């Protein structure tokens, strides 16, 4: 078994991706796209905000066009400006290192979240792609909606720039890349320049349709069997509606693939960690802890109109809750669940809502480009309640090409939701609050900015939920350009977005910015108790977690990994995992067992039996059954071992009426001979490794053979 970490990902929206080879089957884990890299492109120009050509001359770094014919010269330093961004139809950046793999060699693709699906059409549109794709029903559905939304947002660019000609776009040429500011250049081609090949022009609606057709959808805990030998099951991870962790059970390996998981969720079905127990190996791929670290470094500086809201969950917990408890499993479970994750998240949402209320009371509008479905749905509920309780008649607009369908979908999937939402089903109430609010016309849903209905109902101040969090595509661009100069208005962004780069085209910004982090994975202090509970023999961890885990395990009395072998994986490198079992497990059917004719051997306690049957494989299980037709076995043994006791052989010959004499030469190495004279001449030549029977007629030869056979071990 081998694991190659293709990419560690960077956020909730860009999960890690791996390639796992097990039993000769190559499995791609997740196929996301890095939408944060859209930030190198300039958003489409709008009427209210034409291209700021003036800024060219304003910029001191930009020298006037020289005679040498070089239109732009690379700026060495300074802050990023709107003019630095690439003005072209955006391309999209796939998982790095994936292009190094032959598409046709991938056998299976597992998709855990809708985000992990966004790059899939890039693969499925390749005619050589033939892998089987597994995702939960809900993930496939939401993934499809997200892809469709992306296409519809992207369409605005096609309208501006026209249909792109074939081949590589102008901006990808070396001369162009070279003059990009360092920050953008790094996004475009990675630190070592290897990532330029990951850019792809966006797929079409037909590609998406085709891709979705190829996905085999599953329920949680439904067994899917690949190739008869590997059983794949999805279990809820709690991150998003339909998101999953996986169990991959091969004939010699039982693997738990652990993606970002949330123990308690206020919308999606809870992290089902109990079902993941009992596997040999855990691939720990919840890298949300790492994602948090990088963004913290980047956004360390303050901005005056920038409110930050975060709950720092990075440090290993020093709380004594973990220290003074025994190895009791129940205690572990309590410590896993009982940390008020929901309350913390709800507090964040309440904070956002109160900021929004303040904002609209001050006459400003609120722009919320959050693409996390669960967060958006909860925020809509909360926001409506907040508005109601503060008696404000401020409309909430949801502008997205797929909003209506998403809302319809989220209200018919009780099986995929958390306990509290399921209780709503049982009491006959709508699963999410938005259903009621839409009916009461408190929330207005529109497919696009330019729909005539929107213009008719539009009223400011208002609260708008719309796409996309990269601030480059979608309705958010238009609204941001409208409100960026309004100091009373508020923009709500998610932690993880590089605000500097993201806001570049909208500068100068007078608008307030609220950035907040949401829980997007297992908290550090829960990693160890979880692994303790799962009890794997081997756990695969990212090398970046090594220090933190060691630090944590020192502070903890429980040494979890006494029996667990920890292996660390690195991005872009292949890790070979030693096998734990040599043989395969199988079932032998009763009818075949009854046909067996075991033969004892001279070795104590060992018997052997030759059989002929059929080997069936289904649901990852091998079953040996007797063949349908009667077995016609060639009688007599074909394989012998051990050595011949000559006296026993002579005796055995005697019993069959054959008499002979032993001719033992003095030479020790040479084989001994037995000369047969009755019933007719024959010879047996015996050595340590073999016996040769020589007789002139068939009957005698086979009689002698029988005698030899009776004194040898054989089958």
């Amino acid at each position, binding site marked *: 078994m081998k694991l190659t970490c293709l990419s560690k990902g960077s956020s909730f929206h860009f999960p890690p991706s791996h390639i796992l080879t097990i039993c000769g089957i190559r499995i791609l884990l997740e196929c996301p796209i890095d939408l944060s890299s859209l930030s190198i492109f300039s958003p489409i120009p709008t009427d209210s905000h034409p291209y700021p050509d003036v800024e060219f001359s304003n910029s001191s770094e930009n020298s006037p066009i020289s005679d040498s014919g070089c239109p732009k010269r690379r700026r060495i330093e300074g802050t990023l400006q709107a003019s630095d961004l690439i003005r072209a139809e955006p391309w999209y950046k796939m998982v790095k290192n994936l292009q190094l793999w032959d598409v046709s060699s991938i056998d299976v693709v597992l998709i855990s979240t809708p985000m992990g699906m966004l790059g899939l059409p890039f693969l499925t549109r390749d005619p050589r792609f033939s892998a089987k794709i597994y995702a939960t029903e809900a993930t496939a559905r939401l993934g499809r909606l997200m892809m469709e939304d992306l296409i519809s947002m992207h369409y605005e660019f096609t309208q501006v720039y026209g249909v792109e000609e074939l081949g590589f776009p102008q901006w990808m040429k070396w001369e162009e890349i070279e003059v990009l500011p360092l920050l953008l250049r790094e996004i475009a081609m990675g630190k070592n320049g290897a990532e330029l090949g990951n850019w792809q022009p966006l797929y079409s609606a037909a590609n998406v349709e085709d891709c979705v057709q190829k996905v085999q959808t*599953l*329920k*949680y*805990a*439904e067994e899917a069997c690949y190739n008869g030998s590997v059983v794949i099951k999805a279990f809820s991870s709690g991150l998003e509606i339909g998101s999953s962790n996986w169990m991959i059970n091969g004939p010699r390996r039982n693997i738990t693939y652990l993606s970002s998981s949330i123990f308690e969720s206020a919308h999606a079905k809870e992290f089902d960690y109990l079902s993941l127990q009992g596997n040999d190996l855990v691939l720990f791929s919840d890298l949300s802890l790492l994602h948090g670290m990088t963004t913290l470094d980047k956004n360390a500086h303050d901005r005056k109109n920038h409110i930050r809201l975060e709950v720092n969950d990075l440090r290993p917990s020093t709380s004594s809750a973990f220290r003074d408890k025994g190895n009791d499993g129940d205690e572990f479970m309590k410590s896993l669940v009982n940390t008020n994750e929901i309350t913390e998240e709800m507090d964040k949402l309440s904070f956002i809502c109160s900021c929004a209320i303040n904002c609209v009371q001050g006459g400003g509008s609120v722009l919320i480009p959050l693409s996390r479905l669960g967060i958006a749905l909860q925020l809509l509920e909360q926001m409506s309640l907040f508005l109601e309780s503060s008696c404000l008649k401020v409309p909430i607009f949801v502008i997205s090409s797929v909003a*209506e369908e998403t809302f*319809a979908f989220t*209200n*018919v999937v*009780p*099986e995929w939701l958390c306990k509290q939402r399921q209780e709503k*089903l049982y009491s*006959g109430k709508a699963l999410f609050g938005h259903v009621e609010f839409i009916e009461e016309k408190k929330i207005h849903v529109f497919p696009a900015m330019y729909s005539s209905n929107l213009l008719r109902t539009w009223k400011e101040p208002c609260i708008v939920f719309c796409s996309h969090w990269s601030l480059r595509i979608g309705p958010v661009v238009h609204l941001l350009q409208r409100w960026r100069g309004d100091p009373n208005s508020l923009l709500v962004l998610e932690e993880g977005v590089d605000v500097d780069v993201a806001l570049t085209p909208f500068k100068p910004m007078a608008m307030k910015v609220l950035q907040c982090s949401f829980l997007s994975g297992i908290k550090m202090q829960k990693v160890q108790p979880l692994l303790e509970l799962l009890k794997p023999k081997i756990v695969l961890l990212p090398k970046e977690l090594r220090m933190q885990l060691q630090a944590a395990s020192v502070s903890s009395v429980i040494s979890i990994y006494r029996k667990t072998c920890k292996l660390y994986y690195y991005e872009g490198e292949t890790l070979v995992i030693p096998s734990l079992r*040599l*043989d*395969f*497990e199988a*079932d*032998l*059917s*009763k009818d075949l*067992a009854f046909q*067996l004719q075991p033969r004892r051997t001279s070795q104590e306690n*060992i*018997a*052997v039996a*030759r*059989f*002929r049957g*059929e*080997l069936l494989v289904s649901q990852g299980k091998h079953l*040996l059954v007797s063949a349908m037709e009667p077995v016609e076995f*060639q009688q007599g*043994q*074909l*394989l*012998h*071992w051990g050595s*011949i006791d000559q006296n026993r052989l002579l005796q055995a010959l005697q019993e069959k009426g054959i008499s002979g004499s032993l001719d033992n030469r003095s030479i020790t190495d*040479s*084989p001994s*001979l037995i000369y047969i004279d009755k019933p007719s*001449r024959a*010879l047996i*030549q015996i050595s340590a*490794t*073999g*016996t*040769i*029977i*020589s*007789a*002139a007629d*068939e009957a005698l*030869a*086979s009689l002698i*053979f029988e005698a*030899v056979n009776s004194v040898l071990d*054989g*089958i």
Partner: protein
Amino acid sequence: MAIECLVLGAGQEVGKSCVVVSIGGKRIMFDCGMHMGYLDHRRYPDFSRISESGDFDSAITCIIITHFHLDHIGALPYFTEVCGYRGPIYMTYPTRALAPLMLEDYRKVMVDRRGEKELFSSDDIIECMKKVIAVDLKQTIYVDRDLQIRAYYAGHVIGAAMFYAKVGDSTMVYTGDYNMTPDRHLGAAQIDRLQLDLLITESTYATTIRDSKYAREREFLKAVHKCISGGGKVLIPTFALGRAQELCILLDDYWERMNLKVPIYFSAGLTIQANMYYKMLIGWTSQRIKDSYSIHNTFDFKHVCPFDRSLITAPGPCVLFATPGMISGGFSLEVFKQWAPSEMNLVTLPGYCVAGTIGHKLMSGKPTRIDLDKDTHIDVRCQIHQLSFSPHTDGKGIMDLIRFLMPQHVILVHGEKPKMATLKGKIQSELGIQCYDPANNDTVHIPSTQVVKVDITKMFIRTSFSATPKSIKTGVDGISDSISQDSAALPLIQIGDERRSEGILVMEKTKKAKVVHEDELLQTLGVAEHKVQFAYCCPVYVSTIEHIKGNELSSIISKPNGDTGVSCLLESNSPSLSLAEHKQTLMGSELGASDQCAWLHRLYIKLIEKCSGMDLQEFSDHLQLSSLHICLCPNKDCPFRIERGSKGRSMAFFCCSWSLVDENLAWRVLSIMKDLDLSQ
């Protein structure tokens, strides 16, 4: 391991479904229903047969409920809250959502209307439902380490499921009620092709083969349309769930198509609320409805208007869905009293009504007057339309399901005794499957398949899955049967499907048995092979030596008069030369090479002549046929030269060796060689 099946209800009858199945120490109760036809102790299953002490928690591992109909769930609150069962209960999400409505409605009817002593309270229902674990279709749920269960779509009502259960290697399916044909709002039953020891199936329509329901639907719509266009009122007494939605979809569609404006009413309460549930549970309905929900949720009926009591006597046509079905009381009876006396009106009844209800009276004959009690009677002048509409599979569907699953045993429940007996006979004669139709409180014992756990090696698997043309070769005798090219090609194709695997099972005390490939056996046992072979140095006549040109040949022919001068050249001192050394000596001698070729070649030609079709291969120093190895023997003292040949004729000796596999083949070749004369 055996499966033991205790039928507590629905044995040779319809009502109070309850089967307790014991497999490998686990005990599962499938359904916990009540009988609508009885009011005494017979209405519930006889739970005392499960545990006399009443300790149901240790007696039963879990309860599985297939759907929310009262004859499948009616006794559940009684069993959990009154009898005290506290273990897990499994049912699908829709059943979990809708069962409390059904139970509460029933409780109300019992207590409020009939004034009976209540057997369980509203709180009991709520408490009971808290013990429920809701499951989705196809999820494999581990109840405990050994017991796994899985739900499959049954299509009978929303959320109805067939349940698969597995303990160890014993497997079974309990179908509950199911429908093999899709209707308007539900799909047909779906199940994987499982290997089953036991199938417990309903048999409501054991012997009926139903025709298409479209004709019946058309008739129904025609009757309704006729009535409303004549200004009449249509009363559809129905249960709140299932039939109501099905008929309403039918009418809503028809109204849309015909552009009708006549109002459709739902009697307040349960049905309106039920539609809310149906909207959220749309994922459990038919494919057509599921596909269209994002544009329009089918259960947002366009032509349905809210109803209030004053509308009963309001003039003008309308259609009204009213509970309960069968007009056994309540609101539907109230409306019936008002509407029955007018011949303009129409009442549609379901196919089946319990005896004693007004629905039953209306269906049996055409009464003009119905006595409610001593003092009140109703004049019935309205039209009566009967729409038999039953989401149960028919006899053909049952047979189809059994044929698809091909279980080892079948138990029939939930049907009428004589029809079940007929179906049982059919299953046994047509499918050759052992079938039972136990009565209530009977127990059926069923043996189940057993397997032995073994380890198998990688090599064994690899050889098992590579197509095995080898097995053909050993089966075909190369010599006597001359196989033409065409017939040889045929079995090769068949072999691809066969996947015969041969191996050796190594059983060691205190260890798991292991299956190895033949080639791995010695290594597994840690022993060295002892090769047993046969050898024979066969004399062949070469009588007329003149035909052979060149002197060299004489070197290896031992002359009858014993002149061995030249042959000394190649002679080896050791009489006990092993075969391998033997070959080596010959290979090493350059002198002999061409001679050997000549003689060997002659032998080759002769052998091929004698038996065509033989797969004899010629090499420079030997001939090979499977394991039979033939080479010219230069050693006059060859130990395998058992026979010296008859005197007076020139002989060439060919040393032959073979292993046991080719015993027959070798002797046949030898007998040919003995009769040969190479010089001819």
